[in-house]
Structures are given as C-alpha cells and as structure tokens.
C-alpha cells in the first residue's frame, strides 16, 4: 500500500513534467503539422540557463523568468530560421530538420555547460511530507500545482482570447484561416515559442529532483511525445492525460518489474497503442457536420 502510494506520487510527478512537453508537442503539431523533436532540448536549455543565472548570484525567481524568456526566444529563433525557410517542403523534411535542431542544441549545451550534472535548489524548502505511507517531495506538489495553473492559463488563452480563437481556427482549417487574414507563419512562430517556454518550465521544475545535464532533453522529450501520441495527438487534455499515464507506467514498471526495462515498457505500450488505438486511448467518435 505504501509502495503503491509512493509509485503514484512519483509517477504523477514525472508525468507532469512529460505533460508540459506533451502540451508543447501537441500545440506545435496541431498548428503546423510538424512533430518538433527539438522540444525536449528546451527543458535542458531552461534548466541549465536557470542554474547559470542562480550561480551568477541572481535571485531564484528572476533566474527562472529569464531562463524561460531565453528559452522561448531560442524557440522563436529556431522557428524563424530552421523551420520558416523550409516551410514549403514536405512535413517529413521539417520533422527531420527538428531532429537536426535537437542535435545542434544538445551540442551547444555540451559546449556551454560541459558534461557534469548541475544542481538547482528547490524553490520551496520544506521537509518531505509523509502521506499514507508515501514520502512526498514538496517539489512534487509544487510541480503538480504549476501544471494545474498552466493548464488553467492555457485554457483561458486558447478558449477565451481572440488570438486563441485564431490559433484554433488555424488548427481546424488553415486555408480558411488564411482567408480571414491570419498569417499561418505567425501562428507557427507563436506555437514554437509557447512550446519552448513550456519545455523550459518542465526542465526547471524537474532539476531539483534529478539534476540537469546537457543530454537531459532527449528522454523527457521522447516521453512527452509518447504521452501526446497515447493521448490522441489532438488535444491538450488528451496529451496531458497521456503523459501522466506514461509517468505512472514508468514508475510502476520500474517498481514492479525493473527500472532497467521501464523505458522499454513505455515504448512497448506506445507501439501497442499505435497498433490498436491509433487515435489515442481517449479517442471517442465525434460527429461533425460538414
């Protein structure tokens, strides 16, 4: 029972991190059709930039904000350089470009920050909480709360603002959106920037638990991607649910089978989902008039 609770807490914690990446994935994918495999690198950039600022003596909150802004700017630069100029090529080529960008960013991370893992002190300094036999790291609660707040903010942004309605229009019917005067390229830039910022937040949040290295982005990114696919690739709630599931799956398989196989098991589930429920496990029939 205690173990069960512990696995749930840990699973939801890593799952929340994957969820932030998954939101970025699904947003970029819905608006541009591109699977941005550089997504995970923004977790690395966010985390290491934040650590650099903290070590330089900046207050924690300022460091976090600067790190997010810098990561978002890099996301925008990536879109304006690597993606924009290739926009008229096939989606496959664009996806390969994002893999190239990912390798490049990781290489820059290696040059700037080296190979040593770096630490970040948690934002909230509290003793671990004991709850139903599980030991809960306060950072886990913090991560979960941040995820909930961001979901609320994103909901308002996408559903209640004008620019959010333009983004949804672009998702649904880019050609008609263009006829309204919406420039798809601006929306694409917006999506990449938003996704990079979310990636950075994920990286900064996980670092007090796992430390940060130049190569931390890959696995987080892939797990976020798996979460999005399991969640159906079309909605933020689906992507978040999928990512939380990936987190739980990982800790449970790590705990009951072996941590050695937990990644393999995650991918096995991905393959099974793609095979049996290619629209994601939360897909439901949706009627729509044409």
């Amino acid at each position: 029972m205690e173990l069960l609770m512990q696995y749930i807490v840990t699973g939801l914690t890593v799952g929340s991190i994957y969820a932030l990446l998954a939101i970025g994935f699904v947003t970029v994918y819905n608006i541009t059709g591109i699977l941005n495999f550089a997504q995970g690198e923004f977790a690395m950039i966010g985390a290491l930039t934040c650590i650099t600022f903290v070590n330089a003596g900046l207050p924690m909150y300022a460091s976090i904000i600067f790190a997010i802004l810098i990561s978002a700017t890099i996301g925008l630069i990536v879109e304006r350089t690597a993606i924009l100029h290739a926009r008229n090529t096939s989606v496959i080529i664009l996806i390969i470009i994002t893999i190239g960008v990912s390798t490049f960013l990781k290489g820059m991370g290696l040059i700037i920050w080296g190979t040593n893992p770096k630490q970040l002190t948690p934002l909230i300094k509290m003793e671990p909480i004991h709850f139903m036999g599980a030991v809960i790291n306060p950072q886990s609660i913090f991560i979960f709360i941040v995820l909930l707040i961001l979901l609320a903010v994103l909901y308002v942004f996408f559903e209640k603002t004008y620019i959010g309605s333009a983004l949804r229009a672009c998702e649904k019917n880019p050609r008609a959106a263009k006829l309204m005067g919406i420039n798809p390229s601006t929306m694409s830039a917006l999506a990449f920037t938003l996704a990079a910022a979310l990636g950075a937040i994920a990286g900064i949040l996980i670092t007090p638990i796992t430390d940060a290295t130049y190569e931390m982005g890959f696995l987080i990114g892939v797990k976020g991607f798996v979460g999005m696919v399991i969640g159906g690739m079309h909605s933020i709630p689906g992507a978040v649910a999928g990512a939380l599931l990936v987190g739980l799956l990982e800790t449970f398989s790590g705990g009951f089978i072996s941590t050695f196989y937990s990644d393999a098991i995650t991918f096995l589930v991905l393959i099974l989902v793609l095979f049996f429920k290619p629209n994601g496990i939360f897909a439901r029939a949706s009627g729509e008039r044409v």
Partner: protein
Amino acid sequence: MLKVDGVSTHIGKIKILHEIYFQVEKGQIVSIIGANGAGKSTLLNTLAGLYRPTSGTITLENDVISGYPANKVVEKGLSLVPEGRQIFSNLTVKENLLLGMFSKYYKEKKLAEENLTKILDMFPSLKKHLKNLGGNLSGGEQQMLAIGRGLMSNPKIILLDEPSMGLAPKIVYEILDTLMIIKEDLGTMVILVEQNVKAALKVCDQAYVIDQGRIIINGTRDEISSNPQVISAYLGIKSAGA
C-alpha cells in the same frame, strides 16, 4: 473597381486558367457561370491569393493585389467566401464572425462590435446561435455565417463561391436577397459564382461564362439571359433544379 488583366493560373504543371480578362465596376454584382471543372473556383481562389497567377495582374482600386498571399489580399479589401463555406466548426458563431476581421481586430475593437451588430441585423437567424459552435448550424445558417464572416472585414469586394450549394430554394432566394442588400446598402462589389445559373442571372448586372479555363461569353444580364448558347447549355435541362 476590380480589374483582372490576362490572368493565368497553373496548378502543378497544368494550366487551369488561360489569360482571363474581366472587370467588376463599383456597385455591380458580376456572375461567373460554368460547368463543373470549368475553373470557377480556381479563378476565385486566384483572385483571393490562394493561388499565385502565373501571368497577368489583378488590380483593386488602383492597388495591385496579385502576387500577395491570401492573408494580405483580404487586408487589401478582397474577401472570399469559399466553396463549401469552410466555417470553423470548432469555434462559436461569434468567434467565427470576429475572426473575419482578424487584421483589424486589435486596432479597431469598436468597429468589431459595430460590424457584429450590422451582420446580425443582416442575418437575424444567427443571433440566437452566437454561442453555438459553427459546426452545429444548419447548412443555410452556415452559409449565412460564411457570408457574414466574409463581410466583417468591410471588404471593397466580396467573392462567393457557389453559395446555393446544397440549399433549399427558399434559402437560396434569401441569400440572393442578401446579395442585393450587400450591393445596395453596403456598396460592396460582388462576384457570384454559381452553377444555379437561373438564380445567378436574377441578381447580377454582368455575367461571364467560363469554360475550360477560358471566358467564352460575356455580357449584361439581359444579353446573357437571351444568349442562345447559354440557354441551351446552362438554362435548358440543367435549370430544372433551380
């Protein structure tokens, strides 16, 4: 005035439109009629900037609009209500309408409210659906929404691609009445593409017949209505459904 000067369009390597010349004068409704695959939609899409013409120029009131992408063309005052309505089914009716003036929205929020009121007066049946999703409207309401959305940007000219498609005759006539209002009250030029030739000839001032990407006949409404070729090819058996 809209002036189309020797416009050709290729899709891939195939030449779909062959040196099209025509113009729309201020205060006019111009009809473009033709069979399936004649190139009507290609022509409207080219005017709207969805295709870039491979020759010729398009001028809207002394402003060259050819060569610009669709999102710029609408800013310049040409609005296309595309074939099949293409409303955003996942957005509410109000959101759909407001997106119609995307390029002006942030600069002129007051105009947005004014235009919304104006459009809802024109299409009162949309009023009770403002908060409903566009995808849940009936076909006729969707067409009105598509036209309303196209008018939100205060265009100088509005292009309608087969607005009567799939609608009951009563609704078709409602829509034709609206076109007269657009022409007379708003002073907006109209290009109406129709397969329902009878309906089109009721409201237009000028008409052009397009066949295999070429304009083969043009004239005033009366000339076209009495043209023997038009009568046999477009008003004969085909008009049965109109």
